[in-house]
């Protein structure tokens, strides 16, 4: 007997009798003999106590460092209540809400999630949800290519190179061509856009804050795009949207991004959650699940998955995306985070992150080992500097004090080997800044 398998000897005998066979093995009679596999070479069954011991042993081989970097994964604070609520079995163990009568819980939080993403981005309709920010951007690329029936797009090279790399993979197999737009002083350039955006392009994809942490200014972008029927996709960290001008205000047709920064644990890179929101007119080209409000047969308010005829399970090979349900529990996570923080808390957490980042930035520049890389645009919570010392020396000095950072941008092919990136969140304190500065002063 095993704790997850309730079958007693008597149960098995009675069941076999009903079926009319004399052994469970007989239920595999249709499997060719030559295919039958014996004896999995796997570890033996572990009791719970042994599992804890085993994980402790693995943990002994891990040093958790305090991140002073981001690069797409930010160490923000998670309010305690979230874990407790999302682990309620009603949320945790249920399936995709195909039976709406007994899935109103899931459907309601999806509706609330859509409403909140819409509030943050200013867009008319949001889906729930996508795998991560990078694949969400790839889905946005498919979407604008399908809307404009064009197979070419322009992508700013200030987007995080990992996102560009995912875009290139998806584009290659779908037969889409990507042209890269050059930056000026670390931000997407209007002049370059004017020079390079053509009738052949379905649209433009940009990111703000970008890979260098800089806030981009899209004044004039929409006009250039509209002249050639180009669509505008903005990838934006949603945690900045209590402060910053919304994608909608810049004229975006589609807003996407990574919502990990809304309190999701780092968890070595996943699970995270991508969001995608657009103008209502484009809903039929949108990927993923969308929940709508309706009534039941007695007139009660209720929720249901809607616009399903866009999706793969109905359109099959004619669907614009192969996305099914995904990351739903993380949509709940984000919804509870945003409900808990509210408009003020989201602003305050981002403000603390920004204050810490600017303080660290200014203090680092007082040291003789750092210089600015770009001039002009302000950053948000992440910034790029030039190190006059070998980057690994700087990293080792911080790691000795338990910090992870700075990130060496050359690992992503950016800069000349001296560019480094730091990021701060509301979790980093005055003491952190002092420790970091002291550790680096020792190198001078």
């Amino acid at each position: 007997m095993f704790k997850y398998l309730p079958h007693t000897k008597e149960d098995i005998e009675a069941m076999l009798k009903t079926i009319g066979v004399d052994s469970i093995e007989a239920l595999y009679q249709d499997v060719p003999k030559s295919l039958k596999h014996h004896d999995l070479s796997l570890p033996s069954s572990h009791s719970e106590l042994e599992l804890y011991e085993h994980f402790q042993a693995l943990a002994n081989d891990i040093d958790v460092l305090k991140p002073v970097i981001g690069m797409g994964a930010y160490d923000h604070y998670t309010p305690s209540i979230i874990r407790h609520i999302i682990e309620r079995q009603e949320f945790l163990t249920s399936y995709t809400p195909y039976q709406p009568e007994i899935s109103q819980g899931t459907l309601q939080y999806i509706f609330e999630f859509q409403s909140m993403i819409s509030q943050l981005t200013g867009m008319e309709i949001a889906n729930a949800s996508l795998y991560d920010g990078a694949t969400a951007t790839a889905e946005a690329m498919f979407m604008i290519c399908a809307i404009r029936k064009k197979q070419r797009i322009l992508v700013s090279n200030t987007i995080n190179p990992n996102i560009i790399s995912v875009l290139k993979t998806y584009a290659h197999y779908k037969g889409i061509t990507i042209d890269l737009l050059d930056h000026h002083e670390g931000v997407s350039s209007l002049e370059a856009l004017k020079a390079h955006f053509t009738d052949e392009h379905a649209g433009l994809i940009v990111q703000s804050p970008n890979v260098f942490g800089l806030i981009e200014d899209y004044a004039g972008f929409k006009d250039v795009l509209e002249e050639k029927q180009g669509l505008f996709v903005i990838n934006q960290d949603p945690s900045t949207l209590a402060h910053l001008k919304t994608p909608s205000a810049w004229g975006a047709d589609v807003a996407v991004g990574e919502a990990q920064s809304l309190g999701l644990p780092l968890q070595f890179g996943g699970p995270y959650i991508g969001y995608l929101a657009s103008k209502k007119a484009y809903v039929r080209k949108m990927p993923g699940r969308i929940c709508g409000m309706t009534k039941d047969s007695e007139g009660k308010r209720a929720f249901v998955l809607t616009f399903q005829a866009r999706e793969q399970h109905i359109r099959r090979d004619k669907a614009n995306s192969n996305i099914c349900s995904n990351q739903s529990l993380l949509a709940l996570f984000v919804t509870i985070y945003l409900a808990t923080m509210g408009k003020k808390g989201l602003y305050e957490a981002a403000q603390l992150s920004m204050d810490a980042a600017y303080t660290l930035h200014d203090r680092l520049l007082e040291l003789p080992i750092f210089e600015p890389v770009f001039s002009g645009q302000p950053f948000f919570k992440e910034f790029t500097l030039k190190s006059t010392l070998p980057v690994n020396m700087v990293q080792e000095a911080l790691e000795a004090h338990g910090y992870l950072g700075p990130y060496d941008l050359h690992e992503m092919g950016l800069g000349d080997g001296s560019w480094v990136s730091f990021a701060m969140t509301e979790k980093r304190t005055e003491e952190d800044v002092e420790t970091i500065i002291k550790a680096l002063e020792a190198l001078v």
Partner: protein
Amino acid sequence: MKTPKGLYYAETHEWVKVEDGFGYVGISDYAQHSLGEVVYVELPEENDHVTKDTEFGAVESVKAASDLMAPVSGVVVAINDDLEDSPELINEDPYENWMIKVELEDPSEIERLMNAEEYSAFCEE
């Protein structure tokens, strides 16, 4: 199942009504019935060209989607705007509510469609 006489029908369940060299195109009662409650009709734009036996739009119900195939070729001179806000008109009267009006390019295409009797028999198969 209603199948009015005087219209021409395609195997893909669209109908054409010919008037003064123009063809009005819609879907049949059989088609709207099989789809169920229609929630969205996607149509081409005026001045687009449609080609016989190729897709010119799509019609969606709650749990199905079906491409619309052009029974005739020509330039679209008008679309039925009412369907954008009231797709349920297709369920209410699929013959009154045409989808596109096409300037017929090749009147002989009509001859290759079915008449009402033939189409009724086709649907019963």
